[in-house]
């Protein structure tokens, strides 16, 4: 019952968020700031995780496909497909749900408990739109960029692992990376990322906006934002995979 109540409140909040902005210039400025806060500040962790995951996927694939009937270049091929189709869009989005989602929920939640949201409301400002819409748009622009970087670094990480450990000769790895490359896979990864970015920013914004109480409740909202964003990412991952790949 409570789940339906949350879904209803979430949809009502979305309707408020998507109302026409009162001052487009200020919203544009806020989007740029949020792109910096939510996107560029996550670049470091995305880069580190992508390089190491790419390397690990390559080594594990090499050890698990050691069969005379499988060509050696299949390691590069499998690494590329794993990174593009699943690792970069989904795992990176889950990591961003933790980092960005908690930030959004705690920032907006603190504004709620310190009456800053009330201050916006009494000024006649659509506080939900002003606070959450720029974060949603910024995430939907910047997260796909992060995922493209993650794909590149993941493949590079695999290449570095191949070079360092020689589990796959570099020429075979490179051949596998280019083997039967379908640009649609990148499109699929980006579509998923955009949907996940929307979910992370809007769900976290919802929990932050509906915070009541004090510091303890801000912490609870932040935790709920991460948990629910992650659950919905996994759920929508299944739906989108079914729709876009099958």
């Amino acid at each position: 019952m409570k789940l339906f109540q949350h879904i209803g409140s979430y949809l009502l909040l979305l309707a408020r968020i998507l109302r026409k902005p009162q001052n487009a210039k200020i919203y544009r400025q806020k989007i740029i700031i949020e792109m910096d806060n939510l996107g560029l500040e996550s670049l470091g962790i995305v880069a580190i995780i992508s390089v190491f995951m790419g390397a690990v996927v390559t080594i594990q694939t090499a050890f698990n496909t050691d069969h005379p009937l499988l060509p050696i270049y299949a390691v590069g091929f499998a690494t590329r497909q794993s990174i593009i189709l699943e690792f970069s869009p989904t795992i990176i989005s889950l990591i961003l749900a933790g980092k960005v989602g908690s930030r959004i929920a705690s920032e907006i939640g603190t504004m709620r408990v310190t009456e800053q949201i009330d201050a916006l409301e009494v000024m006649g400002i659509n506080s939900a739109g002003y606070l959450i819409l720029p974060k949603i748009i910024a995430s939907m622009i910047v997260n796909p960029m992060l995922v493209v970087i993650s794909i590149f670094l993941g493949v590079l990480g695999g290449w570095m692992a191949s070079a360092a450990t020689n589990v796959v000769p570099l020429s075979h790895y490179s051949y596998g990376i280019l083997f039967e490359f379908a640009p649609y896979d990148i499109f699929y990864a980006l579509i998923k990322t955009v949907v996940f970015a929307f979910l992370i920013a809007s769900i976290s914004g919802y929990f932050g906006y509906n915070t009541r109480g004090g510091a303890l409740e801000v912490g609870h909202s932040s935790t709920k934002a991460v948990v629910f964003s992650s659950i919905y990412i996994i759920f929508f991952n299944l739906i989108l995979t079914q729709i876009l790949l099958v």
Partner: protein
Amino acid sequence: MIEVKDMKKSFEELEVLKGINTSFEQGKTNLIIGQSGSGKTVFLKCLVGLLEPDHGSVFFSGLNFTSMKGNERTRVRKKMGVLFQGSALFDSLTVEENVIFPLEMFNKDMTRKEKIDRANFCLDRVNILNANHLYPAEISGGMKKRVAIARAIANSPDYLFCDEPNSGLDPQTAIVIDKLISEITKEFQMTTVINTHDMNSVMEIGDHVIFLYKGKLWWEGKSEEILTTGNKEVEDFVYASELVKKLK
């Protein structure tokens, strides 16, 4: 002028406001006093539209604010300035940006320079000097209240609402803030409504005082009359402190 007609508000079974009728005149400092839990904050929130009353109406200069929706309500809200208990300054903006913020949102005709000049005028008026580029976390509680007042008056409001403006301030700073609110009320001919439980404020700046008791308007009158009401609940509140009892 603000008129309140038969305002009632409940939270589930708890009846917080039980039919309040009163009016607040322009150019006067109107105080709402009462014990904690008497319904002062709920009443103020219903006045500014942060809570919807279950029954009754609020009229701003004859316009029924309670029945308004959307843009109509936004137009009235642009004429309001609100000073919150915790100041509610935006943490991510500097002092100057906080004051400019309401101008940026709604005054598209003003140039950037005009907005900065207006912000500086408001900050000067509340005696904030050389703090324009500091963040709220870098200034004292008293300064935060002043900046919040400057932000509240930036858009030249017709109505000013203050929720416990003295809370967390030392007695001297509290008097300075009280006098400042009273001065700007007269200067800009605003209708000011202050929610407080500070008897110093009542005696210093109260032109019109209403006393809430258990969600009802128990007494109203001028500040000088409050000492001699003969009403037990009012006197219990007024003479609660030992110091005032001795003075009596």
